[in-house]
């Protein structure tokens, strides 16, 4: 696994602190969406399907920072939309780094190379580049030819300048395990710090539900992809989450683990589902009917979901819940065997 020791330490002390305080529901990663606007129009992406006046709006840096303070999570992921289109992205990132938040700036990398000068390398900042597979697979996923090559060039440039760079891949139905293994080789060959992978998102408003992986099929796909992992592969996520994807754990969703804030407010209940908005983080945590979500709830929309924003926090929580969880995580981390 490739998460830096300082980040692991920060997360570990944060989670243990929450447990020490007796908190059962706490956020791990704030999903901060300063805008929905994007320079791609990937089919099925529910984030960009809004009227023009909504796509033109964005949060102020001050409002973003208020949300970060309210939430208190040690990590902030900035998706969108395309965050590099946010006019104050440099100031926002600098403020977050100054607050010692571990920032994942999720980008399709089309603008990354030309905007690198806006940022300074830091252990707190990682560019998380959206890469859904090898050239043909990725360009098909983002519905535009040439994006893969742009992203590769940007990754090389960012790595050369000392930035932390990770990749973020959504694995869709029909993905070839063999091609994904080749993709892992290719990404590690670029010098990225690590990779993040997750099954396809299942937005309730995305019109292509039929393309998202069902649980059993997902486990089979990830087993084929991750069995006998190469030593060179590094994953920037909890090893227990990867084992969950391979069907080796049966976790329940932690929808409050990755709370989402955007121009509409605090999204209920999670990054994927939009059942409404709360005005404050406190209101989100206290008034969301959490029991109505997750597989055990019987909520139809949660039945096939295995996405990282719901289960990565569960995996982390599991690590620190028992010596067994800790030992399992340590074993996978040090041996690399999933």
């Amino acid at each position: 696994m490739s998460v830096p020791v300082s980040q692991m330490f920060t997360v570990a002390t944060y989670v243990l602190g929450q447990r020490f305080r007796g908190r059962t529901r706490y956020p791990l990663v704030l999903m901060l969406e300063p805008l929905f606007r994007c320079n791609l129009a990937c089919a099925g992406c529910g984030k960009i399907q809004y009227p023009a006046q909504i796509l033109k709006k964005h949060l102020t840096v001050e409002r973003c920072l208020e949300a970060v303070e309210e939430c208190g999570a040690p990590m902030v992921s900035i998706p969108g939309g395309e965050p590099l289109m946010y006019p104050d992205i440099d100031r926002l990132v600098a403020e977050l780094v100054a607050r010692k938040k571990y920032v994942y700036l999720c980008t399709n990398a089309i603008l990354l190379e030309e905007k690198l000068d806006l940022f300074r390398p830091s252990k707190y900042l990682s560019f998380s580049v959206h890469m859904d597979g090898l050239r043909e697979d990725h360009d098909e996923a983002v519905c535009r030819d040439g994006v893969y090559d742009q992203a590769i060039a940007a990754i090389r440039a960012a790595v050369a300048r000392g930035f932390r760079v990770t990749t973020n891949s959504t694995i869709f139905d029909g993905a070839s395990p063999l091609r994904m293994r080749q993709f892992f080789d290719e990404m590690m060959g670029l010098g990225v710090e690590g990779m993040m992978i997750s099954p396809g998102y299942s937005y309730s408003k995305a019109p292509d539900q039929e393309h998202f992986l069902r649980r059993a099929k997902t486990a089979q796909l990830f087993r084929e992809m991750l069995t006998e992992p190469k030593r060179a592969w590094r994953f920037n996520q909890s090893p227990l989450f990867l084992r969950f994807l391979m069907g080796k754990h049966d976790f329940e969703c932690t929808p409050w683990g990755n709370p989402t804030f955007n121009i509409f407010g605090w999204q209920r209940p999670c990054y994927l589902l939009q059942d409404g908005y709360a005005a404050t983080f406190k209101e989100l945590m206290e008034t969301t009917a959490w029991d109505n979500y997750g597989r055990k709830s019987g909520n139809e929309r949660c039945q096939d979901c295995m996405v990282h924003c719901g289960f990565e926090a569960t995996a982390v929580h599991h690590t620190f819940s028992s010596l067994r969880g800790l030992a399992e995580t340590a074993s996978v981390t040090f041996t690399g065997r999933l």
Partner: protein
Amino acid sequence: MSRQGWTPEIGPGLTLAEVVDEAFDYRGNTTIVRRDGAEVVGYVFNRNAAVPDPYLQYFDEAGEGPFTLRYAEIATIKFTGRDTAAGNSWKAWVERRERERAEAARAGRLISGPDSSGRDPDPDGR
């Protein structure tokens, strides 16, 4: 199926709360018709029917807001704006791309394939 163009009539078979839920799910602007006859165009992004005085929230057509409107003030909601989710599915894109590839392949054959005389224009296969 898109609700675009829908002008619901609130009545015994359709409650205002149901129409508000549809508007909340709709990815386009709607026209909210108030009980006093006034109309406002905007994007409904939130609603709460679980409180004593249910309300919805919207940004208007200029992006100003958020504004809050109580259900009690609303007569109906018309789905007047373009549904930005309609026709943008992954499936539609794949089908479109396959169609384009097939057309390109056919066009390529017409250009580089055997001519009308039956002779191969590129006998060496270059």
